């Protein structure tokens, strides 16, 4: 039977015309291969990108981090170059912020370490200044007022000056800043006369956090501006004046802007920092610079001069205006009083030569106590004042998670994985080809 069908099929197949295959068959095959590979890569990327947005446990974001722990870490490492950005996934309130050059941005970037120990990067615009962290760690006031919890950023109008970091009120509801009015760059008219005014007074403003509004509380020359809120937030101490020779300290009523007291300051005296007001509200801490008082001679460019940067504290009785020096003299480096802990002031002390930072507590009558607070990056990290005053300090060292990454890093990783898989497949094929050839060589000839 089947012989009939076989013969019929063979006869029928014999009617098939002679054909010549086109010369480009091989090239067509290669095109199909390229298309298939491109589609494969695209599909993998699509799956990877889709996977990133799935609500998996332990995916990107602050879910990587542990639960909120209210201790300050003894040491904080640098972020990864591909670290997730703050704008993509806000991680406030902050445990600390610090500046780093360890990012892919040309400018130094700001690292926000959340209370959940997550790391986020904020890339600065060229020339943008860092800003100040609020005492509760929720807000950051730089060129914009940023809510670190929601990620919302409010542009202030008019813009506050970047020359003087804003100082926060203790309740984190407002901050004092300067709106500069000086015409620093000289502008001349057609006949060469100067047409702008370098002596215009600056506005000292209170920035309201809820609505981002600015209220002028004082108008003065702010070249030597520094400020500190009283513990109850009702009074504000500021330093005003054109230069160190003419500076004076004012105590203002925050609500009305009324000047309650004016005290002349010497060229070596200055408000010690944003937390200069003592917890009982009766004293204001000043720093008295020993050695070289003016910036040009203390710029740290010459090591011998930097060694001269010394200071000691002074206690100003706000009611009487009397100033008392502490017993110690010649404390090193450049201080900033940032908090009070167990009744003693806490200072961040920066060495201008190597930009190193130490955070020390100065107990009354005792020797300075270096607090275990270190972070990688430039200069001193900023801690929320409330945390510095109330939280334990012996927290474990903090390192960022490499998986808290920006989207492009996941895509790049996907490509690397694909390339590796491709390489393995290629090597496998090559190996299989070689083993086939080898088997063919050693196989005995078939019997004839």
């Amino acid at each position, binding site marked *: 039977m089947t012989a009939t069908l076989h013969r*019929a099929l063979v006869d029928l197949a014999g009617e098939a015309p002679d054909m010549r295959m086109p010369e480009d068959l091989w090239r067509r095959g290669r095109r199909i291969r390229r298309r298939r590979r491109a589609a494969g890569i695209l599909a993998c990327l699509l799956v990877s990108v889709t996977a990133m947005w799935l609500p998996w446990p332990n995916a990107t974001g602050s879910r990587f981090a542990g639960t909120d722990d209210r201790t300050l870490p003894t040491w904080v490492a640098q972020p990864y170059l591909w670290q997730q950005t703050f704008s993509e996934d806000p991680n406030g309130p902050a445990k600390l912020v610090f500046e780093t050059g360890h990012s892919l941005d040309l400018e130094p970037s700001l690292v926000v370490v959340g209370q959940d120990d997550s790391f986020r990067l904020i890339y600065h615009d060229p020339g943008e200044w860092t800003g100040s962290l609020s005492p509760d760690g929720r807000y950051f006031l730089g060129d914009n007022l940023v809510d670190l919890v929601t990620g919302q950023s409010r542009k202030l109008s008019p813009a506050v000056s970047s020359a003087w970091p804003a100082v926060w009120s203790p309740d984190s509801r407002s901050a004092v800043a300067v709106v500069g009015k000086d015409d620093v760059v000289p502008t001349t008219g057609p006949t060469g006369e100067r047409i702008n005014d370098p002596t215009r007074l600056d506005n000292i403003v209170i920035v309201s956090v809820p609505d981002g509004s600015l209220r002028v509380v004082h108008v003065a020359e702010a070249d030597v501006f520094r400020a500190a809120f009283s513990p109850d937030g009702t009074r504000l101490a500021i330093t005003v004046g054109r230069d160190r020779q003419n500076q004076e300290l004012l105590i203002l009523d925050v609500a009305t802007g009324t000047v309650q007291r004016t005290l002349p300051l010497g060229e070596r005296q200055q408000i010690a920092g944003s937390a200069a007001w003592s917890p009982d509200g009766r004293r204001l801490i000043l720093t008295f610079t020993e050695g070289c008082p003016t910036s040009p001679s203390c710029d740290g460019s010459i090591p011998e001069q930097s060694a001269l940067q010394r200071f000691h504290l002074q206690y100003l009785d706000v009611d009487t205006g009397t100033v008392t020096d502490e017993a110690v003299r010649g404390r090193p480096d450049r201080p900033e009083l940032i908090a009070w802990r167990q009744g003693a002031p806490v200072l961040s002390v920066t060495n201008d030569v190597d930009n190193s930072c130490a955070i020390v507590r100065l107990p009354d009558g005792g020797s300075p106590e270096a607090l275990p607070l270190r972070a990688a990056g430039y200069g001193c990290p900023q801690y929320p004042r409330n945390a510095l005053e109330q939280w334990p300090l012996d927290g474990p060292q903090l390192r960022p998670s490499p998986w808290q990454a920006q989207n492009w890093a996941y895509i790049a990783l996907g490509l690397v994985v694909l390339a590796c898989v491709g390489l393995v497949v290629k090597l496998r094929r090559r190996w299989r080809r070689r083993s086939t050839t080898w088997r063919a060589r050693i196989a005995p000839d078939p019997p004839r």
Partner: protein
Amino acid sequence: MTAGPADSFREYVHARLGVLVRAAFLLTGDSYLAEDLVQQTLAKVASRWEQIVAEGNPDAYVRRVLYHQHVSWWRRWRREPLPVAAVPEVAGADPHGPATTAIAVRQALAKLAPKQRAVLVLRYFEDLTEAQAAQVLGVSTGTVKSQTRDALARLRSIAPELADLQEVSR
């Protein structure tokens, strides 16, 4: 010096083109469609040529692509006539021998479903066993058996001159 993959592919096409074209002609029943089918098959084969050669049996892979491509064409375009319940007027017995039988087979094949046609070509033209045909088509041996049985029954009803067709298991 060893030949590159493009050269070895060309050599393979040169050696096997006739066989492929004849099988494609039986499957499609049309010389132009057969040419298209072979071209598409070989282009696909070229896209994986190194891998196919490494596996050591290009014929098996090429045959698999050819038959799958044929069925895939049918699924996509349904150019082929579908089997009908009432068979139209049939030819009488063949008094003139094999040439007329071939014509009758050609007409009958055209009325089979593509998978049935493929089974017949694999089993009775390429002379593959049921297991080999099953491997090429990616189906079970049982499916090949039933498809063969149905195809032969249909051939017998369409072409009475093939009435002596019987299924032979191998």
